[in-house]
């Protein structure tokens, strides 16, 4: 099959999947279900595209779709702060980093082997399904409340902020995280520094 046809098939299937999931969600669980279906399919579709795409840039941007989808799922789960943080950091930071990497490295086009992807997918999916089945059988151990008894969702800002600064909660971790980020920053700069040997002879001066 030619590349064009492949692409058409893929994207067609993807779209079909998204719509199917949205519809199914709507039908079974109402608005929440529809939202869930939309966001989850967005996530999955993004990651599929990431794997599928031949161009690195397009893979990177489909990764952005993944991150967005995940943020949406966070929202559905009542963690608004987390969703915002997700978008800020992941899309605004990490994705940018990846794009920097894409820019700084030469392009490689079409470096994928479909049989490889297919095989890996089958294998890992099979294994993971086994795990999931087990986990599903064991969810009784999870202290999961039935839907009726769930606490209502509230805004998370204040609670998260307070938790960060409360001396008995997460202040230490917070400070350490800050410290870690500083160190990471310095480390990254150091690792990625330009060495004297990188310079051309006339630039050495």
């Amino acid at each position, binding site marked *: 099959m030619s590349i064009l046809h492949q692409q058409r098939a893929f994207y067609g299937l993807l779209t079909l999947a998204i719509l199917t999931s949205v519809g199914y969600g709507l039908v079974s669980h109402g608005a929440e279900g529809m939202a869930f279906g939309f966001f989850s399919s967005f996530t999955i579709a993004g990651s599929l595209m990431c794997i599928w795409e031949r161009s690195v840039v397009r893979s990177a941007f489909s990764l952005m779709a993944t991150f967005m989808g995940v943020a949406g799922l966070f929202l559905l789960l009542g963690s608004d702060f987390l969703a915002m943080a997700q978008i800020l950091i992941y899309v605004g930071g990490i994705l940018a980093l990846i794009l920097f990497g894409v820019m700084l490295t030469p392009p490689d086009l079409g470096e994928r082997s479909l049989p490889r992807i297919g095989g890996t997918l089958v294998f*890992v999916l099979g*294994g993971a399904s*086994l795990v999931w089945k*087990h986990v599903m059988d064991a969810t009784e151990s999870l202290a999961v409340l039935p839907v009726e008894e769930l606490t209502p969702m509230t805004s998370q800002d204040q609670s998260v902020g307070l938790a960060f600064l409360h001396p008995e909660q997460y202040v230490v971790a917070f400070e350490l995280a800050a410290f870690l980020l500083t160190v990471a920053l310095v480390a990254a700069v150091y690792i990625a520094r330009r060495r004297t040997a990188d310079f051309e002879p006339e630039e050495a001066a």
Partner: protein
Amino acid sequence: MNTLTPNDYLLLLAVPLIPLLGYVVQIFFGRNLPRKGDWMLLGGMFIVMCITVYMFFVHAMGHVGPAPFWNESAMTADGPVFRWLYNTSDVPGDQNLIAGILYDGLAAAMLMVVGVVSFLVHLFSSGYMAGDRRYHIFFANISLFTFAMLGLILSDNILFLFVFWELMGFMSYLLIGHFAQDPDSPRIKHAAAACKKAFLTTRVGDTCLFFGMAMFYFLLPREYNDLLAQGAIEGERVISSFRFVDLWTMGGQIVEANNGEYPFWMSVAGLFTFGGTVGKSAQFPLHIWLPDAMEGPTPVSAMIHAATMVAAGVSLLGRMFPMMSPEVLQIVIAVGAFTALFAATIGCTVNDIKGVLAYSTISQLGFMVAAIGTGGLGIVAGLFHMVTHAFFKACLFLSAGSVIHGCHHEQDMQKMGGLRKKMPITFMCMLICTLAIAGMPLFAGYYSKDRIIASVIDSTLTQWRGANVFALVALPLAAMLTTFYMFRLIFLTFFGEPRDQHIHDHAHESPIPMTAALIGLAFLGMFGGHFWLAGDPLSNNGTWFTNLVQWQTMYVTSRGGSLDLTSMNMIAVTEHTAHTGHVWAVGVSLSVLALGFFAALWVYGLKKLDPARITSKLGLVYEAVRDKYYVDEAVNGSVIRGTMGLAKGQKWIDENIIDGTVLGVGRLGRGLGTLCAWIDKNIVDGAVNWVGNTTQALGSVARLLQTGRIQQYVSFAVGGALLLAAFHILT
């Protein structure tokens, strides 16, 4: 009985010890002493001679009274006794070997003879052997030899006699082989062969003696105790002993209990004992060493082969006489008579001056042995002849030595002649002793030889036995031949025209020490017989020597009382037969003397007959006699070759089988070692190497996992985790 005082015993003990001490000193210091120490040994021997002569005259000749002359130091308080095993005389139930000195008539006579002759030979040697390279060793050797002989005479048991016997054999080896140690001597090989032959031949006799001795030691007491248990004998249980007295008593009582019959084993043992005499006293067939022993220096020949060593055999025979059964005695007579005749015939054909004397010695020994074999007065005759023979034979040898010395070591009589005027003293001495050996009346040899023939006739008249008859015929014949060849020697050497002018010109009389010894011995050769006889020179009985040596006195036990030995092969000699025998003996002796002398005079003195014509007429017979009846060749071919063949066979066994076995074991060990090495290298190391190789192979396989590709690592990690989870879930 036991008339000697402890001091006398000490003197007697000193007699053998002086030469022994002289030997020890001479061996270590002799070379550095002035004149190489011969004066020391000569002085010692002079003292020994004085002691023996003194003891003889004072005690033996001066012995009075009816009791026999018998002294045993082991039975006297304070007498010198050697207790070999324990310090006390006996331990209940065990036997001690007790040795002491026995001084009876026989011992006294022989001791004096040996003392005198040995001293004179020492004196002669100081002149004859002067200038020899090993002069001091020679003197040391003859001193030790004298010690051995004196010890033998004085020993009172057969074991010590055997010890000294053996020592004498060894000393004769050293003395005969004196020139074998001298690399400059032209006859070194002959001397070495001769001394070896002498030693080995007498060794055969020694072994027989040892067997006889052992048989007597073990079997006599057993038989005695058996008879005691049966009640045939009165007395107490006895234990084994070597002492002569014990042997005689036990033997005598056994024979008496058997009514005069000797047990068979006693005959066998007696025959073995006689074997010792056959060896040492050069009887046929062990006579072969004596002619070859002339390789030794002349003083050695004189002492050993005239006076002492050969006499030891006869003295053994004398001591062990009661133990010999009549059958054994027949054999003794036969051997002795045959030897006398046999050697006399050979002596007529020999050209070497010392060789003639050697065969003469063998012949005279045959006389002595035959005489003792006849028993009764024959023992006295034989021992008397031994005494006189010592004197005149020693003198003859020394005179021959003087002749040889004067002719500058020329020994062949064919080259001599007319030396009478050049060496008068030697001539006179030799003539005197030749007359003595021939049996001229009034000379010493006549008495003893006459007595021998008389005893043979006596015994034949009393018992007409085969051996006695043979001796009756053979001995006078041998006497005639003795006269013949001795006068042949005289005529060839001293009379007639000199056959070799060069030797004749240079011949000279010998120096003083040699001629002094010659004169001394010649004197004894002439008058030695008279000494021993008191009374009528032509008479028979009643001489004190007879009394001294008579068998009854010799064999009286020290346990008290007298042993009735009439049942022990003692021939009862009647008065009548004794007188008849004596008359016949005189007649025979004088006639053979005359015949022999005139025959020698006719052929050699007056040269009326040419010896060459006679020998050619005799042809093969002459050649057989001249070649000593091929006895040496027979012995060489059979015994010597056999022994060498046996030795070679054993050598082959040793080299191939024994060494082969050892080598085989070694090779086996090596093979095992190689096998183990193979196992070790291939199997053990192989196992170890296999482990290593397998590990390496597995590692090479496992190494493939490490590709350095992180994506593969991630896939492995995930796959592993899934497997783990699956494993965990499904079980």
